[in-house]
Every structure is written in structure tokens, then in C-alpha cells.
């Protein structure tokens, strides 16, 4: 791929060529940008791998809390699971560690366990999600996350109380999530106003 300044000797096909059809004017773009140096196209980057995701070190604090609360709730197995989650955090995205922790939590905490045993590990896991909103040493939009989470939990709780059927509550959550996704997308469409999608 050759690159020459505008109007340079590479201006093939102009009047200088014997077979030119006539006057071929050379016009530099209005911005004159054609004379700018060419940047390295190798800067094009694909989607970064999961492991290289932005992960704040403050998540380690949340993980320490996870290990502690799991240990308090389930003893040695809880400590083992908490430690495993911490190790997994170094290779898995934070949200995946959260999901794994939630699954383990439901398995470790027996039905009818004290409220503290149920809530404390869940709060520690929630801390993992909140630290992912940290950017430039600031929590960003944590309020949105909190309100949305509480709202969805409230909705699920209402459906659970009314139906006492887990899958119905789960289905309600899925529908609510879908409605939320479409609503935010529509909001974005209105705010930005231009799109080719």
C-alpha cells in the first residue's frame, strides 16, 4: 500500500499521463488531513480476553470477607470453598466467581439456617459485584446496581410469596431482566439519537 502526499508525483492519471481524458484536477480534502502522518494500523485490537479484564485490587478485600463469612457459616468446608473462589478469581471474571460463590453458598448453608449464616456470605459476595463498578478509584453507578438488585429481589420475593414456586419466580426474574435490557437500550436510542443498527 503506497502512501504519498496529496498531489505528489504518484498522482497517476492526471494530465501528465498520456492517456488522461483531459483535465484531471487534484484536490486536497477540505481538512487537509491527507497530509497527516499515517498511524500504525496494527493498533487495531480484538476483544480482550476474560483474564485481562479490568479487576480492581479492592476485590481482594471482598474475597477475604467471602472466605471469612463462608468459614464462619460452614466451618472448614466453607474455608476451603472461600479459598478456592479466591484462587479462581485470578483466572475467572469477577462475575463468574460471584455466580460460583452463590451456588456454593446455597449448597453449604442448610435449609433453616440462621439468618446471619444466610445473609453475611451473600453480602460478602455482593461486595464482589460492587467492586467491579470501581473506575479510577471511584465507585461508578453503584446506586443503579443497588436499586436494580433490590428491585429485582423485591419482585422475586413477591412472586415467591404468592406462588411459592421457585421456577415461576425464576421466570419472572428472566422476564424482568429482558424488559430492563430493552428499556435501557431504548433509552440509549433516544439519548444518542443516531444509529445504523
Amino acid at each position, binding site marked *: 500500500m503506497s502512501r504519498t502526499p496529496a498531489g505528489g508525483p504518484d498522482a*497517476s*492519471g492526471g494530465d501528465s499521463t498520456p492517456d488522461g481524458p483531459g483535465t484531471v484536477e487534484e484536490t486536497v480534502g477540505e481538512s487537509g488531513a491527507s497530509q497527516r502522518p499515517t498511524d500504525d494500523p496494527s493498533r487495531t485490537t480484538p476483544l480482550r480476553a476474560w483474564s485481562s479484564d479490568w479487576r480492581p485490587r479492592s476485590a481482594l478485600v471482598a474475597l477475604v470477607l467471602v472466605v471469612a463469612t463462608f468459614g464462619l457459616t460452614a466451618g472448614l468446608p466453607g474455608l476451603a470453598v472461600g479459598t478456592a473462589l479466591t484462587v479462581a478469581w485470578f483466572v475467572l471474571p469477577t462475575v463468574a466467581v460471584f455466580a460460583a460463590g452463590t451456588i456454593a453458598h446455597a449448597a453449604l448453608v442448610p435449609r433453616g439456617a440462621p439468618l446471619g449464616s444466610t445473609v453475611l456470605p451473600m453480602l460478602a459476595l455482593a461486595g464482589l459485584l460492587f467492586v467491579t463498578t470501581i473506575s479510577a478509584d471511584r465507585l461508578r453507578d453503584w446506586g443503579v446496581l443497588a436499586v436494580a438488585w433490590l428491585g429485582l429481589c423485591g419482585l422475586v420475593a413477591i412472586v415467591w410469596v404468592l406462588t411459592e414456586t421457585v421456577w415461576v419466580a425464576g421466570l419472572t426474574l428472566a422476564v424482568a431482566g429482558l424488559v430492563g435490557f430493552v428499556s435501557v437500550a431504548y433509552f440509549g436510542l433516544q439519548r444518542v439519537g443516531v444509529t445504523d443498527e
Partner: protein
Amino acid sequence: MRATNRFWTVAALAGALVVWATVLGRPLPLVGAAGIVAWLLAQQYRFVRLVEDSLGSLTVDHSVSRQRVPADGTTLLTTSVDADEPLPLSTHVQPSVPAGADSHSDTFTIERGDRTNSHSFDITWPVAGAFTIDPPTLTFRDALGLFERTVQTGPERAVQVQPRARRNVHVGEGGDLVAVGVGEHETGDTGSGLEPADIREYVPGDSINDVDWNATARLGELHVREFETETDRETMLFVDHRATLGAGTPGETKLDYLRQVALAFVDSARDLSDPLGCYTVGDAGLTGTYRPSANADRQLDIRRHLQAVSPTETTDRTHDRQPSSPARAQAVQQRLATDDTDFGRRLVGYFDRPEAYVERVAEDPLVAAVRSARAGHEGANWSVILTDDERETEVREAVKLARRIGTGDGGVLVFLAPTSLYEPGSLADLDAAYDRYADFERFRRSLAAIDGVSAYEVGPADRLDAVLASGRRQWSGGGR
């Protein structure tokens, strides 16, 4: 907004938690599922806001090194993106390349936290015409790679790709090249001017500047050189670019060759400051109308328009219709009037309205263009019609009309593209091609026989030579 696979992977985690809750029969994992859904919604909301901020601070531009370029020429397209403040999102920029242009354009990226980047690449234009380079496409992606949004923003750029002059063009009569260039004209008078005409002896009153010193030295007496005077000649071009004019290989179509002739007239008019007008005719009627003008800008508009026209598309097969001329229809009607056979009586019904043929011919785009050009216009004295031989009756009527309503001592020049020289594969059987060329030649001569009309063929010289050589072989072999 597009959710990436990564988004759906995370959403699947929430789904797994719902399943887990169902398996356990406990709602506790649903709290975690609600957390993941809420987290996704929060990320989505943040992404929407950051896209809005990014678009507000971005300036996107792209420019071409040349806005006019010959076919197969190359331009450098530079796309640049500048932001007022560091971008919060990774932004991929995809420059647009029009269909019909060749390039190896690359996407380039402005990383999160950067403010500017630009990229240049070459575009090759193999096809003549007017092209628009659409604004570049920006794709924003959040830090976690959950969402993408694609937006096209920035200015459009126009590029005019001019056809290269045909090296192989033949303009002539019956295979013989015309001796003079198109568009040139003389008055027959001598005086001041540019073209040398004659040398004569000096007489008192002649300007000393007109003395031809070479002739004086050679002949031993003072001689002056006279020049051809030139007059303004108003010329009207009628350029046919209907579907049939697209016959030929790409870049070598009838229209490509005729366009060169038309452009030569434009250049000649510009050089001589002659008034020039132009009508272009497509399948649906007039596609361009330029009243005669000696204004250089106006003529440049004509030139650009001629460079941009391409064969129009037709959905019907009207060009296959060969209507009879009104005169021929009348002649047939008179002959049938004396025919008492059943066949004659049945046939005469189809010719009882000769005026219908006048109406039908008048509806043909080329005839309509000539009529429109001449309506209410006085002074134009040359008409130049560029078309092919697919519609002989229409061309003949258009030529007659142009001749009849033309003014002054001008005439009509007809440049015809013989179909037999353009159709791909037509030279596979040279004898058949020669026969078709002979038919064309008869048509051309019939036009040239009209008073004040000159008719020329325009085509690729090498193909014409091959056809004529075949004809010579037929004759020398006594085949005809």
C-alpha cells in the same frame, strides 16, 4: 446497541443460578441471579451514558487526496478521529469504501483513554462514475466487552472517477478514420486568428507582426502569413445513455466510446469559447438538460455530467421495438388501399392511422430530446447526436428533426456505435459480424445521405479492423 457473546455468557450464569434454585427448591440462589441481572443492567446503563459522552466529544473527519481521479487511479483516504477529552470507551473506526472501489481498508482503534488517531489507505477506482464515500463507522465497546454500539458519523466525500481516454477509439466513415478532430471548425475566411492558412506577398497596411520571416528569407520578398478566423458555433449535444448503450465489456461499452467523443466536443467548445449545450437521454426520458452557454463553469458542469452518466436500466424490451416511420406507414397504407385480397384488407386496418406513428416516434426519448432542445430556442446551428444503431427509425427521425429545425448554416453530426463491434463474443463468427456491420454501414450511409447530415461510426479500432479484414477476405475469395 448489540449485546456481545460475553454478555450472553454472563446472562447464562444468571440462568444457571435460576436452574440451581429450581433444583434445590430454594429461592436463595435467585438472589444471586437477581444480582447478576442487576449488574448487567447497571453495566448497560453505564455504557449508554458513556457512548453519549463519547459522541459528544468526538470529531470525525475523512478526506481524499483527490476528488477527481481517472479510472484505475488511486486516491488516499485519510480518516481521523479526535476527541476533546480522553475517550471512556474503546472505539473502533471502520472507514467506508464505496462499492466498485478496491481497497484494503483496515479498522483502527482508539483505545480507552486516548484522544486521537488517524489512518490512511489507498483506494483504487477501476470503474468510472460518481462515487460517494460514506462517513466512517464507529463501534464503541465497553471495558468489559459486554456491549457494542455502531454509529456512522462524519461527513460524506464525493469522488469523481473519469474514464480514461480510449487508446483504441475509431471515429470514421465506412472504416476510414476521419481526418480532423471532432469539434474543430473553420469559417473559410482568412484574417486574424490562430490556425495558419496561407502566405501572400506583403502589401502596405499589413502589420509587421504578420510577416513570415522564414517565407521572406526563402522567397526573397516580404511575405505575410494569414490565419484562419474562427467564429462562435453553437453546438447542442444529444447523448443517448439508454440500456443498449451499456453493451460491451466493462470500460469498453458503447457509452464509454461515445463519451470520449462527447467530451472532445466539450473540450473543443471550451478551447474555442463556443456556446455548448447538452441533453442526455435515458430509458425514462431526459436525464440532463444544459442550455447552450459559453460559460466555462457551465461547460465544466456538462463535462462532469457526461463523465457521470451510465447506461440506464430498463425493465421492458422497448428497445426491441422497431416502429415504422410515419412516411413508411403512409406508403404501406397507400399500397394496401389497392390490395383487394383478404390479407390486404385485413392488414390495412393496422395502417389506417399514419398519424399514430408520428405520435409514437415523437414519444421516443431521443426525438423528444431534440424537440425539447429546439423548442423556443433560436440560434443553435449544430446538433451532435451520439447513440447506437439499435433504434434506426428513432435515430433517423431525430436526425431529420434536428436538421429541419436547426438554424444557420450548421448541420447535424451523428456518431453511431455499431452494436456488432461491442457485443461480447460477436467476433467469434467474423463473417456474421461483417454482415451485421454491413447492415450498420447501410444505415449510416442512409443518414449521411440526408442533406446537411454527417454520420460516423465510433468503436474499438482493433475490432473494426478484424471485421473489415473478414469482409476483405470474403470479397477476395469471391464469396460475394
